[in-house]
């Protein structure tokens, strides 16, 4: 059974983010890490491989530096990596990302395509569904449990009341939620082996995608500007009688639009 896990390089959420003059993330100013949600997808892929055999490939769209991210995933145990990188991809939106990944996937062999439920940077959660649509595949999203048997995949999917059990025939796109598993710690042995693993780099030409479909040119949305939210109001501290305190908390939650 062949598994492809889609991964993305994102800025470390603990670091301070800055946008450059073009209102894109100034990637030089922050440390990059593998999208934490994707680690769950890789782990799930490796576990499926342990149970069913086959290959786990990683697919990433990003800048050259995303090779590092792929190596991290390879260090966890994935077999090979594919990086789609092209200057023209800069500024790609969710549609373009899904499209490019889907075109790359058409050149790969897969029974299961795994994704993290979303990324920690843009967080649209649009890519798993988009990829499935472009490839004409069913999608099993928000999974907290995945099982494969008899040519079909069955997941437990987060719902309002608990979980729905959903199944679909292979091949299928599955997105997994945080907590589905405990991503393994990459061993040094894994890190060393990862350096020797195959890592292919594909450009837009390789995929036959014209430049104006993706990146800034193809983007269907554009950023007009950004601002920093008022720094979280330095915590208010109140000391009132108990009933007033309770009311104040409830009021605060209404103001914050959670009640």
């Amino acid at each position, binding site marked *: 059974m062949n598994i492809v896990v889609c991964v993305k390089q994102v800025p470390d959420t603990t670091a301070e983010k800055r946008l450059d003059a073009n209102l894109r993330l100034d990637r030089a100013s922050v440390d990059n890490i593998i999208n934490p949600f994707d680690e769950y997808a890789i782990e799930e892929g490796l576990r499926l491989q342990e149970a069913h055999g086959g290959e786990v490939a990683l697919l990433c769209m990003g800048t050259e530096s995303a090779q590092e991210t792929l190596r991290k995933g390879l260090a966890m145990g994935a077999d090979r990596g594919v990086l789609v990188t092209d200057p023209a991809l800069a500024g790609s939106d969710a549609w373009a990302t899904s499209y490019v990944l889907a075109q790359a996937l058409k050149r790969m062999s897969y029974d299961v395509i795994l994704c993290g439920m979303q990324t920690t940077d843009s967080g649209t959660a649009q890519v798993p569904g988009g990829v499935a649509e472009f490839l004409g595949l069913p999608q099993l999203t928000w999974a907290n449990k995945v099982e494969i048997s008899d040519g079909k995949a069955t997941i437990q999917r987060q719902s309002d009341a608990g979980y729905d059990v959903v199944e679909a025939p292979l091949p299928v796109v599955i997105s997994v939620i945080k907590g589905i598993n405990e991503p393994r710690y990459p061993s040094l042995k894994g890190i060393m082996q990862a350096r020797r693993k195959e890592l292919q780099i594909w450009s837009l030409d390789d995929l036959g995608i014209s430049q104006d479909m993706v990146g800034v040119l193809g983007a*269907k949305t554009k950023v*007009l500007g950004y601002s920093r939210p008022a720094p979280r109001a330095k915590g208010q501290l109140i000391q009132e009688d108990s009933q007033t305190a309770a009311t104040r908390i409830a009021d605060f939650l209404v103001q914050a639009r*959670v009640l």
Partner: protein
Amino acid sequence: MGTANVIWVYAELSGKEPKKIALELMTKARELAEAMGGSAAAVVLGTGARTAAEKLAQHGASVVYVAEDERFGNVLTTPHADALSGLIKEKSPRAVLFGATNSSKDIAARVSARLGLGVIADAIAIQVNGNELHVVNPAFGGSLLVTSTFTDANTAFIIARAKAFAAEERPQPLKIEEVKPVYTAAPQARITGAVAQPEARVSLEEANVIVSGGRGLGAPENFKLVEELAQAFEAAVGASRAAVDAGWISYPHQVGQTGKTVKPKVYIACGISGAIQHKVGMQTSDIIIAINKDPDAPIFSFADLGVVGDLHQIVPLLAKEIRKRKGA
């Protein structure tokens, strides 16, 4: 496409009622449409759509497109995407607003891919600017607010956060239009069953609200105060290491460096001092509320709202207050 200044809401059902977020979006859609000199409509798919239409009309829908078909209930995403994309192709609305639920995000993803539409997710504000829709969403873990717009005149998809907008009544005459979707023959994901949450408890990782208890509760039996408050919120129950250490609650509830890392919308810490071991497990929560008797507790230095007082009184009163307001 997208020429008419009509704003749609993709309204999800909860039983035979529209979900609360659908009404919030409906109100906002109406407001946006009026600003653009157009009108608002809703799309409701699934059993109960007709009944739900009424409420949507009350909140500003001039037209409610409905399709009642069992497959909306037992097939994931694809029939909804088929129905919605067919309708969009036919009617070309200016924009469709989705609530930020798992299902709506999935449907938006498929339809936008199919029709080549722009999507802006996680919206907390939408404004009309001339003929443009300006959408604000937080990015990079909330450290930036980004204002974006759409580059083409196609139907714009906006996925909005719950409670970003208030639901208000803007009654319109009820007008229902039946839709007859054309379904594609692609392989489907079928819902074959359901698993209820064990003990009706929400898991910490997935919870929107977490109520946590610490050593400040004073005694093991007081942990039920925390549990009651959690129930009022339909929240998950968390705990500090000290409370787990003392044997008041089991380890799976532990939040912190050596427990779970959580990021709910609201984190309510009751009797937790906020030592670093706990802090690193919950500090990225959107809103942190702390109740503690010690005004010097470190947790107050990073809580959004700190309450110095007796949690044995405040917590039950708060639970009552929440129940009251949720009921209203």
